[in-house]
């Protein structure tokens, strides 16, 4: 019997599910497998780091040795063998490229394929009239290219790989590195502090509104390699920056570890908008392969009237363990957290936020939408804490979960701690399924069941999608549809 056209289309659509799953054959230089003090020294030497940073890494490593891997999150995975991972892998280059033209064309091709043009004049995703975006491209353990550097320098904005910042701006790095997430913070932060290889560094000087969006694109390519990047963004008084983060990885049967740390420092009247579309390889429908994503992200609103906004769309990774947090220290500072977490097949996500209110009149908003399909488990875990001095602090939390299918789970674990009489906290959460009526209505208008589901889910997520910068919103909306493919019927 001949294969029908429908089957062909179906197969095509299934293989399109994770279109970033290709492997690029790029010669890499790696450190010996495993983790030891020597590896930490090796990484530090590779990066030509000053003594103080090596000492810091070693302290973190020694501290990490004394820690135990946390088990409180509602995720289930086989024990990670930390000696079976390459902690350093970098594409081989003869000399360090001086400009974009000198970057290995093969690397550029990879990013071209991912839809991230590393050419300065081009505009992302073909959206006309959209602003330029400066991109720092991190490939496995190192940053391979950073665009629009000169343009940014004119404004005084520093945007470069963190390894360069260590050399060129040691005073800033030394002052802020580890000040928001100390290496003693948690197991994965300690590990990251010991072995982080690259990441982005960004400093926005006083009163500057960053002329374009900054973006880092993370790509894991090499097999058996962990990615440990560290991002540090400092918004000085009355400055503003919008920062985007994207990530993908090849499809592989093995699990790969990604343990990043992101630190944001926001001073008086400054604002950082941080958006993430997390699309690491999620594993196949039987849960084979996928990235273990253990990330510590935290923002410190140090100054008065500081504002930070986290927006995340989590569709990838086999395991997600991520709690972007805000420490609202300065009076009147504002923290926001908008999140969509979509889990399908055997994915597990334990994600949420922490809002620590310390200053007066601080306010925070949490909007979290969790969607579970297939046999996935998704958990919202969040903390809202009002300190004794947080007079008139406000928090409003909404977390909604949507279940698609009867084999998945959705969980909500909020912690609410109030020590301030004048603080007001409101928390609401609901869990429900997509109603038959909504589905029926869409279908009788001529949409297929899958299209209907995508439409309804997009509506469910709208509040969060609207917070994303335009280029990301388009991508995220598509991702929502793709991630749920195969979850109905």
């Amino acid at each position, binding site marked *: 019997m001949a294969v029908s056209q429908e089957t062909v289309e179906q197969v095509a659509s299934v293989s399109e599910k994770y279109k970033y799953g290709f492997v690029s054959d790029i010669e890499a230089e790696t450190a010996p497998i495993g983790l030891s003090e020597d590896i930490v020294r090796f990484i530090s030497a590779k990066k030509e780091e000053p003594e103080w940073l090596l000492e810091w890494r070693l302290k973190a490593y020694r501290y990490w040795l004394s820690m135990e891997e946390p088990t*409180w999150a509602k995720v289930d995975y086989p024990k990670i063998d930390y000696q079976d991972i390459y902690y350093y892998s970098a594409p081989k280059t003869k000399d360090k490229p001086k400009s974009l033209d000198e970057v290995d064309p093969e690397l550029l091709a990879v990013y071209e394929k991912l839809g991230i043009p590393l050419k300065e004049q081009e505009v992302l995703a073909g959206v006309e009239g959209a602003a330029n975006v400066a991109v720092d491209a991190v490939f496995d353990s190192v940053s391979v290219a950073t665009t629009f550097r000169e343009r940014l320098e004119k404004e005084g904005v520093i945007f470069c790989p963190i390894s360069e910042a260590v050399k060129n701006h040691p005073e800033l790095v030394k002052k802020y590195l580890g000040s928001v997430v100390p290496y003693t913070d948690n197991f994965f932060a300690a590990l990251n502090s010991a072995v982080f290889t690259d990441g982005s560094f960004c400093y926005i000087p006083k009163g500057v509104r960053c002329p374009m969006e900054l973006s880092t694109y993370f790509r894991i390519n090499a097999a058996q390699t962990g990615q440990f990047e560290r991002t540090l963004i400092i918004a000085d008084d009355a400055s503003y920056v919008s920062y985007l983060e994207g990530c993908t990885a090849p499809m592989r049967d093995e699990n790969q570890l990604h343990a990043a740390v992101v630190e944001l420092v926001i001073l008086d009247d400054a604002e950082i908008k941080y958006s993430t579309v997390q699309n690491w390889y999620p594993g196949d429908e039987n849960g084979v392969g996928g990235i273990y994503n253990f990330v510590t992200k935290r923002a410190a609103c140090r100054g008065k009237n500081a504002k930070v906004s986290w927006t995340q769309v989590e569709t990838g990774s086999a395991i997600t363990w991520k709690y972007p947090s805000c420490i609202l220290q300065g009076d009147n500072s504002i923290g926001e957290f908008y999140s969509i977490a979509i889990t399908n097949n055997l994915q597990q996500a334990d994600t949420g936020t922490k809002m620590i209110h310390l200053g007066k009149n601080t306010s925070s908003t949490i909007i979290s939408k969790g969607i579970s399909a297939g046999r996935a488990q998704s958990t919202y875990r969040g903390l809202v804490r009002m300190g*004794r001095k947080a007079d008139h602090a406000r928090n409003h939390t909404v977390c909604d*979960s949507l*279940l*698609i*299918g*009867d*084999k*998945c*789970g*959705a*969980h*909500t*674990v*909020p*912690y*609410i*701690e*109030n*020590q*301030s*009489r*004048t*603080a*007001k*906290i*409101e*928390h*609401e*959460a*609901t*869990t*429900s*399924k997509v109603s038959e009526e909504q589905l029926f209505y869409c279908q009788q208008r001529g949409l297929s069941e899958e299209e209907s589901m995508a439409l309804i889910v997009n509506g469910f997520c709208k509040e969060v999608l609207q917070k994303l910068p335009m280029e990301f919103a388009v991508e995220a909306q598509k991702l929502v549809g793709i991630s749920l493919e195969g979850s109905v019927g």
Partner: protein
Amino acid sequence: MSSLTPLAQRYIDRFDTAARQLPGADNRSVSDLRRAGLEAFAALDFPHRKVEEWKFTNLTALTKPTANEGRVAPAPAPAIPDQPFEARFEMVFVNGRFSAAESRLDGLPEGISVTSLADSLGNGTVLSFPSQEKRAFLALNTAFMEDGLVLSVAEGVVLDDILVVTFRSEGDQETGRHLRNVITLAEGSSLTLLERHVGAGAYFSNPVTEVSLAADARLDHYKLQAESPEAFHLAFTDAELAERADYRNFSLSIGAKLSRNELTTRILGREAESHLNGAYLMRGSQHCDTTTLTEHRVPDTNSSQVYKGVLDDHAHGVFQGKIHIFPDAQHVAGDQLSKALLLSDYAAVDCKPELEIYADDVKCSHGATSGELDEQALFYLQSRGIPLASARKMLIEAFLADVLETVGNERVKVYFDGLSRHWLSEA
């Protein structure tokens, strides 16, 4: 086991001597049960704050009393008024033992059997107890239980009146009082129970209540926790519900220096429902913890929870509630609401409303709020000529009114209403 808390160590050291004097000492199955309880307890010790379920409640004052020596304790909350409650049927326990002299149980309808646990253990009645893994206070209770209420209601029997059980503690006592109540309602029976915990002095009360409702049974279970302001009250209630059973629990907590009211409801039969409500009024340095777990193990079941707290001075309130819906338990509705009112700059509340859901065709929600009295409402009342103090009182009463409304029994409602008004008038 070298690092046990001093109190746990004292319990373990005392066990052999104590077990010989406790009821049921001659009965092999009872002593085996006690031994198992002690072993479970020894493995657990008293929970500390690193234990997730005890994150918000610090038991150091109980388990390491010497740690607090030399510290000037804040003034204890005023003693609880001994408000009368006219009861035709009352069972009284004094210092953990049944007092026949003070109890009035004559005239209970046929089919309602009320006895003391000490008698049941003594005459060899075999009781089955829930698993005590992870619950140190349940295990401790099993090892040292000495008395309690054993109530069983026969098929179809309905008590029109209220059965009151009063647990009174008098005077200081170093070791705890471990009461064990076993309540069984047969098919189609119905009962209203008011459990009162009162006392004076410094003591440690550790009551465990097991409730089992057969098909179509209904229990209205009220609890007043008005222990002495120097006392510790750590209570655990476990209820299991068969088809169409209806369990309603309301707890009013105003006493104790440190208290925890832990409730587990296991809904095992279709169309069964559980409603847990309560109010806690705390001042001084009182600490009150309400922890609930509602398990929906089968489809077509309902549950609801509403807890409200008023916290003054240095008082600390805790609410931890969890709704757990098992796989395939479809068509379940579960709601949960926790509200706390902070009246002082030093009062605090911690809240953890949790949902764990493994079925898709369910509707679950939870809400939690905390804050001070609404300034606009206060201003409005004052603008109408009502003095600030009265206006505050009115608003607090209104805040509590909608949870007190859920008390179905009119007499209990009037009683609880009176107690909360009295509490407010002492501010």
